[in-house]
């Protein structure tokens, strides 16, 4: 480096650190005055880390961070006024008032979000790295996280995935020695984070986190390695936060004033200033003028925040779903054909997947055994040979890890398809789905998309027992941001799968294991089915039955017999639980006056409950009888065949319920 370059670097680092310091101090003041509404974790004392690492990053490189993320956002290029406005809850804030301190989003500058949950940023950075690898760019992804995160499964799963796939990721651990008030020395069996790198097969370093110049050097090497395809690096930065965990919290129950004062003397900003002046790199006057300039910038930022408008209350639910949900041009054909070429449901989704993979190089599939083997249910058979290991990616058994990775990949421009085999396994990753995947579009006010397709088998049958038989659609249908598809026929499965692969919203695609090989007509031409459009599987006059997946087939099996008795059943399959096509159901009940919902899932707060409640509400005057529901028994699924049969709705149960309904 030339002297000029060194001076430029010093001034640049000093400037970034000062922006962070002064902004944080102003935020602390505002918090005290009650101008900031929620929690506020400042980065005071740790400024060197974000400043040094981010000074190597380009706008296209991406940063994922934690609850203590103001510094990362500012260092990545977020203007202080957008940060302040966000904490003030204003429309001009970087998350348009939807996030606050712990949910800062500025994809425009590569700030892909801070998170109120400890851990996920590590997995999301892996996803960013995976996108860059797939798209063959030399961008890098950085995860900043605290010492509290390194004992979390996300750290383990993330570092391992990054290592085996050689992802261009920096894992930057800010070891400030406490997780809230729990000392790291207490919670870590191996209290050296840097030394853990070797356990995952990647370089691991421990650096003085308050030495900006040293950090700058180390980070520079790691970024260069990542860009060159050399894979990930773990950097432990030993540091200290000199303010309370969060503004307003008590500080001296777990550490002493003396400790804090001692660390204040090691202030990274002061340290850089002293070194730079002593070594004649910059003058005190130059640094003073930076201080003054930033003072003005922060004042301006605060005024901007205070004078910015509040978001409009009517927009409170805006951005839960994508504003432009689909991008495809394939014709929409919601109506089922009566006849034609017959294939199975698995073949139908396979066809959809291979058609779309051929068109969109951003689509990749992850799962256990979905590569060369072609999937437990043959969901990806033959595709590995065509598209190779990056697009048909076998994973270690770390559901949380690869779902978290999918989230980061979706945010950075690729389209992951996660193949779980059994939806029961998804439960290990529910936090990533519910807290991250479902919420990112909203928190980023629609500036990030979340095109993630999560598929897996549900349903009771063939003595699969309780860990391979859950029906989880109702649970996901409680989560704003998700779309939940539960198809019952090959035609629906293909059209909805194609829709999902062109949707900007995350989709949970649940296939009932007992109907995977049921054949049905599927046209050879391409088509899509819209979400939230029910199918009238069989028209009728006397009673409406709403059913999903296997229950559609079961209900259908009793319709002819009932018809002979003079009971004409109208069978409605909503196809998607969320959004739910309640209008079609209401139309049907308007005609028949009677409603039975057949739901293999559990009753409490479930799918049938929701359908019943909505019809009772909006279709009250059309009801000629009470609404009836049939649900699976409220118990884990047993193994033994007679026990299994006893917990799942049977055909006779359905016909009996329909006859009774006619007598009401």
């Amino acid at each position, binding site marked *: 480096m030339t002297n000029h370059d060194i001076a430029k670097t010093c001034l640049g680092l000093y400037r970034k650190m000062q922006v962070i310091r002064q902004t944080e101090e102003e935020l602390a003041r505002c918090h005290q005055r009650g101008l900031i509404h929620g929690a506020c974790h400042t980065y005071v004392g740790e400024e060197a880390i974000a400043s040094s690492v981010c000074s190597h990053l380009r706008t296209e490189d991406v940063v994922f961070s934690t609850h203590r993320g103001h510094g990362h956002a500012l260092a990545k290029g977020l203007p202080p006024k957008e940060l302040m406005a966000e904490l003030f809850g204003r429309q001009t804030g970087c998350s348009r008032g939807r996030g606050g301190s712990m949910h800062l989003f500025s994809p425009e500058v590569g700030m892909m979000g801070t998170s109120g949950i400890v851990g996920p940023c590590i997995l999301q950075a892996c996803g960013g790295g995976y996108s860059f690898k797939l798209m063959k760019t030399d961008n890098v992804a950085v995860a900043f996280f605290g010492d509290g995160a390194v004992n979390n499964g996300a750290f383990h799963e993330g570092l391992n995935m990054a290592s085996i796939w050689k992802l261009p990721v920096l894992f930057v651990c800010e070891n400030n020695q406490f997780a809230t008030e729990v000392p790291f020395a207490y919670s870590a069996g191996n209290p050296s984070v840097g030394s853990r790198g070797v356990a995952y097969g990647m370089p691991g370093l421990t650096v003085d986190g308050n030495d900006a110049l040293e950090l700058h050097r180390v980070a520079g090497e790691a970024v260069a390695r990542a860009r060159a395809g050399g894979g990930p690096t773990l950097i432990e930065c030993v540091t200290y936060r000199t303010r309370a965990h969060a503004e307003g919290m008590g500080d001296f129950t777990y550490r002493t004033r003396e400790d804090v004062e001692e660390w204040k003397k090691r202030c990274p900003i002061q340290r850089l200033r002293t070194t730079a002046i002593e070594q004649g790199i910059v003058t005190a006057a130059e640094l003073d003028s930076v201080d003054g300039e930033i003072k003005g910038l922060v004042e301006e930022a605060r005024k901007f925040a205070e004078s910015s408008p509040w978001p409009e209350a009517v927009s409170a639910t805006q951005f839960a779903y994508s504003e432009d949900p689909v991008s495809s041009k394939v014709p929409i054909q919601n109506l089922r054909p009566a006849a034609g070429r017959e294939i199975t449901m698995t073949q139908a989704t396979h066809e959809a997947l291979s058609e779309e993979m051929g068109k969109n190089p951003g689509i990749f599939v992850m799962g256990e055994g979905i590569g060369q083997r072609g999937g437990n249910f043959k969901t990806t058979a033959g595709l590995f040979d065509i598209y190779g290991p990056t697009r048909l990616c076998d994973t270690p058994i770390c559901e949380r890890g690869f779902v978290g990775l999918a989230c980061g990949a979706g945010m950075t421009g690729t389209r992951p398809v996660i193949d779980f085999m059994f939806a029961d396994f998804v439960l290990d990753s529910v936090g990533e789905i519910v807290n991250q995947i479902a919420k990112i579009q909203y928190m980023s006010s629609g500036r990030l998309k979340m095109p993630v397709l999560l598929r897996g088998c549900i349903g009771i049958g063939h003595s699969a027992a309780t860990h391979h038989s859950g029906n989880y659609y109702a649970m996901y249908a409680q989560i704003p941001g998700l779309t939940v598809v539960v198809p019952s026929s090959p035609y629906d499965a293909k059209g909805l799968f194609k829709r999902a692969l062109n949707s900007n919203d995350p989709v949970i695609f649940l296939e009932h294991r007992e109907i995977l090989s049921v054949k049905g007509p599927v046209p050879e031409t391409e088509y899509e089915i819209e979400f939230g459009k029910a199918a009238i599987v069989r028209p009728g006059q006397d009673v409406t039955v709403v059913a999903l997946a296997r229950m559609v087939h079961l209900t259908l099996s009793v319709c002819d017999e009932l018809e002979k008795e003079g009971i004409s059943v109208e069978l409605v399959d909503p196809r998607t639980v969320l959004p739910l096509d309640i209008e079609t159901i209401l139309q049907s009940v308007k005609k028949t006056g009677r409603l039975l919902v057949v739901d293999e899932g559990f009753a409490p707060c479930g799918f049938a409950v929701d359908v019943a409640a909505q019809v009772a509400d909006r279709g009250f005057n059309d009801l000629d*009888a009470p609404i009836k529901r049939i649900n699976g028994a409220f118990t884990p699924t047993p193994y033994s065949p007679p026990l299994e049969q006893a917990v799942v709705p049977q055909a006779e149960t359905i016909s009996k319920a329909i006859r009774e309904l006619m007598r*009401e």
Partner: protein
Amino acid sequence: MPFSITIPRLGWSMEEGTFVRWLKKDGDVVRPGDAVFELEGEKAAQDIEAVDSGILRIPHDAPKPGTVVAVGAVIGFLVGDGEAVPNSINANTSTSASIPKSDAPSASAIVQSLPSRLAEGHEAPAAAPSVRRLARERGVSLSALEGSGPSGRIMAEDVRTTAKGKTMPPQAHSAQVASPRARRVAKELGIDWRRLHGTGRGGRVRERDVRAAKPQLNQLSGLTVVPVSSRRRTIANRMISSREQTASVTLMTQIDATNLVGLRTQFKQAANGSNIPSYSDIIMKLVSLALRQHPLLAARSEGDQWMIPSMSDGLHIGLAVDTEGGLVVPVVRDVGSTGLFELANQTVKLIEKSRAGTLVVSEMQGGVFTISNLGSFGIDAFTPIINLPETAVLGLGRIRREPVVVDDKIVARDQLTLSLTFDHRIVDGAPAARFLQTVSQAIENPSAWLLRSDG
């Protein structure tokens, strides 16, 4: 605690009304006496005044203009400064009764002479719909109860306590139930589902039971079902009550209206731009004179009692008016002391308001007698129905020039048929006939009667 604004009962029999519009906006300061909203009762719209003060809060689920609302339903709130705003009309609050803003004479002469029990005691007691249902099921009459709830509201407990004392087992009055759909269809077809036999579980009336009750309607395709408006239903109920509660007899007589026609011609010439008194106006005036001689025909039945106006009471007479929405009977005030041209102005105004649907309730109350004129339809005689709580109604036929024998010569004269229906419970045939005779004489010599008018 916020005060709720509720739907008041306008008149005695109103169960529901149509919410017309708010007269104040959400957030407006409301003082007692301010008109807060407009409500359409059985026949007319009325401004409703606040009895409490506060800031008006209209929840999102408050009724929209044009919706039918039950008496007692909460439609909004009055809150104090800084007080929490209930976000739904179902929120629990203390109730603020609203009182109808009345521009009517506060009480008619008849009411003043009533014993006090009748004067106050006729208001239907306040009770929630669920309590009313309970009372129906247990065969308990609400009016016999004293409410223990806030402002005397009858609570479920009150009904239960009373029901316990009754010998009649509750099953004897087995609760008649209908599915929501059956109720809706019954309403559309104008069928009272309570009279039907239910084929559903526990005797529940289902849609099929309702449809079976009107087979002719169902089998004949092409018939449209006309929803029964609440005004139509009111008219229907009143007609039935009149038929059921009175012993009505109709007398008819043909009289000579030549002088009446002549007088009207003179009025026409003298009108000078103002409203010319119609035949009905002139006859109304003459009837008021006849009623002074036969006050029993002006009696009002109030419960078990008959109230006869005294000489100092003004006589208010109703005029049946045909409108698009059905029959209404606005009442002309104090006919006796109103000059004929002024009377004409008043009836023109009342007829206009009737047709525009803007009559207020007070303009239809307090009558002692009603006149119904079907002459313009070419009708001569008919049997008018008594407008309760009055005693008699006079029907006017057409006026037509006919050959009649006068002094053994056939001459052309204007003829008119009068049809008087009276309540034989109150008046016997002879006094009623004498009244009709008086009216006939007055109409045959209108000028003389009007000139000696005593007001």
